[in-house]
């Protein structure tokens, strides 16, 4: 049987010394995916990630709906970060449909996407904490993200799955007095997350568990094509909000957080620093936002495209660079939509990092990759 399979499809041979262990898809430590690890005693000798348990065929579905009706389902892969996952698609659709976006809408988008980045990162931090056995770090972020979820609810009408971004702007204008409420809550939120240092990031237990585990060197981070916090934790200064600013990010002062260590600790610290940077960006955006004006260029229900085109747009999401490649053949529906998501790109680092690591370090390495299985599967 194996002889008939072409090279690369052959089955692996069993080894008496090596034990194969399936972690997931039901195991909570693996998220919605299976990680097949081969262990020799306590050490991992090989790891084979097996995603796909939450594959929904978003890209196929997008070929059957027009540019507007694609919006609610394309955000489903990451409902906590739904503004950011829609962002590149909306930017691409605007280029294909030939729409201009009002200035105020651009600022509203930046505020929404930064709030969403914090909401996602807090959720990730809660999970990261609980899988290291740190219950406080599960309770605090899970509670504190409610502050920002309330803001998003005021802004969009929904706690998650906002479907707020549309080609041409955002769906609704900000509610009255939103700026004041937002500023107050964001300031409180920032004070609050700074307290996490004492209980979590400066905690000797966390440091001894994560320092020096799963070290990804600078060269390998580049070679593996990792992105987002994984890349920045390995000492590469790369953030699309600075390097390829979209919407109004070029008018805001964005600082990139970089750490040189490349271990699990650095990878878990960079998103936390990014949240403070997000608070900073929100405050700047609230100051600079035009006080009035339209937030949406109205479109017809079934808008016409400018003709055949291909677009590749990318933004910085909570999990790194998020690209959207849209092929249009001039019809109202896209011919092909490809989402190049940060989780899928960072997954390639997992087999590399776990090799030679102790089995007990698997959760800390796996969750430090800032990986969201549903997004990787799409």
């Amino acid at each position, binding site marked *: 049987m194996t*002889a*008939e*399979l*072409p*090279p*690369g*499809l052959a089955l692996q041979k069993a080894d008496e010394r090596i034990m194969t262990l399936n972690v997931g898809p039901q195991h909570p430590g693996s998220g919605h995916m299976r990680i097949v690890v081969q262990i020799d005693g306590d050490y991992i000798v090989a790891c084979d990630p*097996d*995603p*796909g348990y939450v*594959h929904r*065929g978003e*890209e*196929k*579905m997008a070929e*059957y709906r027009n540019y507007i009706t694609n919006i609610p389902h394309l955000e489903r892969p990451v409902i906590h970060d739904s503004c950011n996952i829609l962002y590149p698609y909306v930017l691409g659709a605007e280029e294909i449909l030939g729409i201009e976006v009002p200035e105020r809408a651009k600022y509203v988008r930046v505020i929404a996407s930064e709030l969403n980045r914090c909401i996602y990162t807090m959720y990730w931090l809660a999970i990261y904490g609980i899988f290291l056995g740190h219950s406080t770090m599960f309770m605090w972020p899970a509670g504190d993200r409610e502050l920002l979820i309330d803001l998003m609810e005021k802004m969009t009408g929904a706690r998650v799955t906002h479907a707020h971004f549309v080609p041409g702007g955002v769906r609704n204008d900000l509610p009255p007095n939103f700026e004041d409420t937002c500023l107050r809550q964001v300031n409180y939120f920032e004070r609050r997350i700074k307290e996490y240092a004492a209980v979590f990031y400066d905690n000797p237990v966390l440091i001894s568990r994560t320092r020096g585990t799963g070290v990804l060197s600078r060269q390998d981070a*580049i*070679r*593996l*094509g990792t992105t987002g916090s994984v*890349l920045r934790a390995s000492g*590469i200064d*790369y953030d699309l909000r600075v*390097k*390829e600013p979209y919407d109004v990010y070029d008018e805001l002062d964005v600082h990139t957080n970089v750490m040189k260590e490349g271990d699990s600790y650095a990878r878990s610290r960079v998103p936390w620093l990014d949240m403070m940077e997000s608070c900073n960006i929100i405050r700047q955006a609230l100051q600079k936002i035009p006080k009035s004006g339209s937030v949406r260029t109205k479109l017809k229900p079934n808008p016409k495209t*400018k*003709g*055949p*085109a*291909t677009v*590749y747009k*990318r933004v910085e999401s909570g999990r790194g*660079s998020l*690209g959207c*490649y849209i*092929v*249009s*053949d*001039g*019809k109202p529906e896209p*011919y*092909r939509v*490809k989402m*190049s998501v940060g989780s*899928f*790109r960072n*997954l*390639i680092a997992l087999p590399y990092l776990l090799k030679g690591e102790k089995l007990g370090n698997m959760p800390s390495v796996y969750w430090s990759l800032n990986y969201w299985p549903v997004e990787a*599967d*799409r």
Partner: protein
Amino acid sequence: MMSDDSEKPVADPKPDTKSSPPPKPDTKSSPPPKPDTKSSPPPKPASKKPEEKPIELPAFEKGISDKLVEKFGDKVEVGFVKKDRVRINISKENIHKVAEFVRDALNYDHVESVTGVDFPTDKEIEVVYHVGSYTDSSLARQILVLATRAPREENPIPGQDSTRLPSIRDVFYSAEFGEREVFEMLGVYFEGHPDNRRLLLPEDWADLPPLRKDFAIKGR
């Protein structure tokens, strides 16, 4: 079995190269879906381009495409040169050489995404690599789009039929999972890829590769 497979690609390039020239005039204006371009839209961008060319082509991006054209001549064909984006169409025989040149001489270091696009009317499947750079700060905004095409069969047997492309995974390691995804979703087998297994689909998936156009969603 294996010798049969390795012979097929040698026989196939002929029909492949015959079918690729027609798209050439169209692709200069960037639209890949040929069938519809014949109606009305393509002449407009095609007629616009020559007027804009001397003024509007961004200089830095033009430099990148010029280097590739200088090195490979008519083996590569410039799809478009836009702000921060350069598209190069390459035949499948040359994709590996171009990828090596892009990595070694142009400082691109990682593949951001690997996309397969099905064109049933052309009887071809297009595979598009979006290549970026972390090390060269002048290329931080740039995305180089490398597009190549594989022959498409009506009744695909993924891994066993003529729908094959050389893998660039040994040039860009980061293309590994992307190529695996294209293999399962469109049935393009990557020669030289060490691990062409399924990634997202169930192990017992026995239908057409789902992102092909003839695989229809129920009720649509």
